[in-house]
Each structure stands twice: as structure tokens, then as C-alpha cells.
């Protein structure tokens, strides 16, 4: 009995989807637009994320050592730093590497190169390039370094930590990143809510046209499950069709947008993101469509079942 009813419900869901031509078309169009907006929010989130990560990666602090600093002390400081939970990476540039890099940077400047040759010893000290996991964590790393200098007693191996020069800029940047994160999350939530309401209302209107039909079904003795079933199947089909159309639309749109976003946001190629994350976007849009279509239909029919 259950399987016979389920088979009939699915059959009528498909038949209604096909026969309610104009209502089906209108519902699919509106759902496509809203699912497209939802998909766009995924892309927007990805672009913002990659842009913010790029900015974050450009921020680091450098620790310059005195030229007389023994290498084993530097290495021991490196391992202490790497044990800190805030530290993402510590790059050690030795005195030799530092001079090589310096020479390379000034290979066209003969005056500087000659001046270097005049010196007996390498004038550059070794240094660290330290990256934190979050931009807000640089301050605590800098504090650790400061304490390290004082606790080493008397002779300090650290010459300069450039965080203190860049402190204001880094703090400002980390505040901006935090605000953008919060704002984009807020915008995404607001658009999601609007999309859900639009889909719910569209389906409600589609089912409103069938309210008489529902009351007749009830009066001929059909149970709630049997009346509601085909509408839920129809809603799910609206969702699946709209999600597939929205997914297909993203192909030309992301191709067109790719150069623009690459220029504007620096590096984030939206088309590559679409291709690389197709399976994920597919699943999110299809599930959103199925869930919103199904649940909206279920709730919209409920009102007319009270006979």
C-alpha cells in the first residue's frame, strides 16, 4: 500500500509538473534567479576569501640580528618561535643569503657593489621573516620577541623587530580584514534570507492556484500524505530544474567575469574556481533547490489541508 501510494504520488508529481505549464515556467524562472543569487554569494565569498588571504600573506614581521649573533642562538630562537601557536612560518635568511639577495637586488648599481667590495666583512646580519596565522596575532609574536631579548640577559642578538615601525599599518589592516569578513557574512545571510522568502512565496502562489483542487481531494477521502505528496514532488522538481539552469548559466557568466575579477581582486580567477569546485557548487545548489522547493511546498499545502 505504501509503495503503491508512493509510486502514484511520484507519477502525479511529474504529470502536474508537465501539465501546469505556465505556473511551472514562472516558478522555475524565479527559483533560477534566486538560486543564481545564492550561487553568486558562494563565488563572492570565495573571491573575498582569496583576496583577503593574498593581503594577509603580504603582511609579515622581520627580525634582524646583530652581525655577531651566533648561528646556534638564532636557530634556537627559530625553534622557540615555531612552537608558538600563533606562528604560521619562520623563514631564516642567513648572513650569506642576505648578502647574496642584496647583491642580486643591486646588480645594476655598480657604486653599491664597489662599496661592498671595499668592506672586509659582510655588513648584513641574518634575519627572520615571520608569518602569523592571523594578522591580529603579530602583536603577541612581537611581544614574545621583546621578552626573549630581555630574558637572554645582557647581550642581545636581536638588532631590530620591524613590527613596531609597522604596528599601526598592520593593526589597521587586520581591522579592515575583520570588518570585511563580518560585513560579507552579514550580506550573505541577508541575501540568503531574501532568496528563501522569494522561493517560499513563489511556491505558495503556485499552490494557491490549486487550493480548490486540494479541498476536492480531501472531500473524496484522500489522506493528507496522498494530497500533499505530488505537490512536494513538484516543488522538488522546480528546485532541481532551477538549480541545473543556474549551474549552466554560471559557465558563460564566470568566463565573462574571470578577467574582470582577476584585475579587480588581484589573482582570484572566478572561472577556475567554478571549474575546480564544480562538484561542490553542484551539490550545494541542487540540495538548496530540493530542500527549498520541497519544504516550501510541504508548508504551503498545509494551509489548505485543514478541511
Amino acid at each position, binding site marked *: 500500500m505504501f509503495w503503491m501510494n508512493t509510486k502514484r504520488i511520484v507519477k502525479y508529481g511529474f504529470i502536474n509538473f508537465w501539465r501546469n505549464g505556465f505556473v511551472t515556467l514562472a516558478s522555475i524562472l524565479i527559483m533560477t534567479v534566486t538560486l543564481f543569487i545564492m550561487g553568486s554569494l558562494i563565488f563572492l565569498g570565495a573571491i573575498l576569501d582569496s583576496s583577503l588571504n593574498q593581503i594577509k600573506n603580504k603582511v609579515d614581521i622581520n627580525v634582524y640580528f646583530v652581525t655577531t649573533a651566533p648561528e646556534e642562538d638564532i636557530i634556537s630562537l627559530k625553534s622557540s618561535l615555531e612552537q608558538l601557536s600563533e606562528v604560521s612560518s619562520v623563514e631564516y635568511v642567513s648572513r650569506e643569503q642576505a648578502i647574496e639577495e642584496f647583491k642580486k637586488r643591486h646588480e645594476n648599481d655598480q657604486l653599491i657593489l664597489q662599496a661592498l667590495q671595499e668592506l672586509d666583512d659582510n655588513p648584513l646580519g641574518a634575519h627572520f621573516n615571520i608569518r602569523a596565522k592571523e594578522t591580529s596575532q603579530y602583536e603577541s609574536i612581537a611581544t614574545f620577541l621583546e621578552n626573549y631579548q630581555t630574558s637572554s640577559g645582557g647581550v642581545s642578538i636581536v638588532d631590530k623587530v620591524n613590527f613596531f615601525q609597522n604596528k599601526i599599518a598592520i593593526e589597521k589592516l587586520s581591522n579592515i580584514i575583520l570588518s570585511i569578513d563580518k560585513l560579507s557574512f552579514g550580506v550573505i545571510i541577508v541575501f540568503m534570507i531574501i532568496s528563501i522568502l522569494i522561493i517560499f512565496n513563489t511556491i505558495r502562489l503556485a499552490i494557491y492556484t490549486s487550493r480548490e483542487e486540494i479541498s476536492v481531494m480531501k472531500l*473524496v*477521502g484522500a489522506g*493528507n500524505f*496522498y494530497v500533499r505528496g505530488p505537490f512536494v514532488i513538484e516543488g522538488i522538481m522546480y528546485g532541481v530544474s532551477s538549480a541545473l539552469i543556474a549551474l549552466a548559466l554560471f559557465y558563460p557568466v564566470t568566463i565573462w567575469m574571470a578577467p574582470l575579477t582577476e584585475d579587480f581582486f588581484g589573482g582570484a580567477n572566478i572561472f577556475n574556481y567554478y571549474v575546480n569546485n564544480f562538484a561542490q557548487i553542484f551539490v550545494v545548489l541542487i540540495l538548496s533547490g530540493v530542500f527549498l522547493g520541497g519544504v516550501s511546498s510541504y508548508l504551503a499545502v498545509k494551509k489548505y489541508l485543514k478541511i
Partner: protein
Amino acid sequence: MTENPKKNGNIIHFDNVKKMYMENAIALDGVTLSIGKNEFVSIVGHSGAGKTTLLKMLLAEEKPTDGKVYFNTTDVHSLNRKNITYYRRKIGTVFQDFRLIPSKTAYENVAFAMEACGREDREIELDVPYVLDLVDLGNKIWNFPNELSGGEKQRLAIARAIVNQPEVLIADEPTGNLDPINTYEIAQILKKINNIGTTVILTTHNKGVIDSLNSRVVTMENGKIIRDNENGKYII
């Protein structure tokens, strides 16, 4: 569930039923009425007399403000939602505005009523064409309601109402939208259905139909029964 205290021969009993929509809008004012098995009862009265409200009480579409409605021994309004669904399968209903499902063909409209009762596909395939033939719609089986005339729509509604062989057929002003020839045909079909053992309750304004049926006539006015005649005529 309370038992019908009235005599066994009755299939339906309205026991002092009152229905008020607002304080001064009384639709039914203490209606007591018994309907026997296989009876043909016509309910007549002006618009607003309470005929349709009385039928809504029987279908459990609305609850009475006071009083009880019994079907066999069952108090209709004490049933839960699920049992109301099963109860409605014992009653066939025909409305003035047909209330067919526009997105379904004639065949599907009738089949739906059988499917809703959980009948097997094989049974449906045999019974639906038979019932449609019975109401003379054998050649319109795949037409949608909007492709049928008023009389055909009402015959389709009757086919849907009787396909599950209900104990009672309710016809709420079934000829209200029909011309005299179709009206006569519908009256004859209802008579035939009654002759094969179904209780029929008909509400109508049509004097010709009542006079031709020569059966029990209950007259209502302002929510009360003012006359109840065996083999009655249309008198208002």
C-alpha cells in the same frame, strides 16, 4: 465515539444541530432529522435557509456549535482527522460547481477517487471506464474538464462520486448550472443510483426535479425544518 441512540434503520441522524457563525448569524437552529437507508431525500429552501450548511456538517467540513451528527452509529464530529478521511470514503459528493480537478482528464478525475481509497491499479482500470460508460461519457474518457459541457461535467462529478460505491450520495444543487434537458438527465441518474441501493440526499431549487422524483421532501427556512413530507412536492 458516542453511539446513535436513534432507531437502527437510519443511516444518518442530525440531533438538534445548531450552527452559529457569529452571534447573530444562525445558519442552523436546532435541526433534528433522520434519514433511512436507501432513502431519497430532497432538501429544499431559499438561499441561506441552511441546506448547504447541513450537508457540510454531514461531511465534517464544519463542526456544529451544538448538537450531534451520526452516521450509522458514529458521532461524525468525534472522529479524528485520519478517521474523517476513511469516513468520507463512504459518502459520494456532487456540487453545483462540479469541483473537478482541472489538471486531470475525465479518467484521472474518477481514478483519483479510487486511488485515494487505496484501490489496486487493476481494479481502477476495470471500474473507471465502466462508471464513465454508465454516465454516458465513454467517448470523453481522455478529455479534460474544460473540454466538457456543463451537463458532461456534472455527469463526470457523479461518476467520481459513485465509483467507490458509497453508502450515501450527497448532491448539493447539482442542476443549478444546467439547462432543462441536462437537469432532467441528472435527476434520472440520481434516481437510478438510488434504485441500486444508495441513499441520496439532494438539495435543489428546481421545482420540476422535486415534483418528478416523487420522494421525501424536507423544507428548510432560516436554519429550521419547517416541513417534512413523504412523497412531497415543492412548496415554499
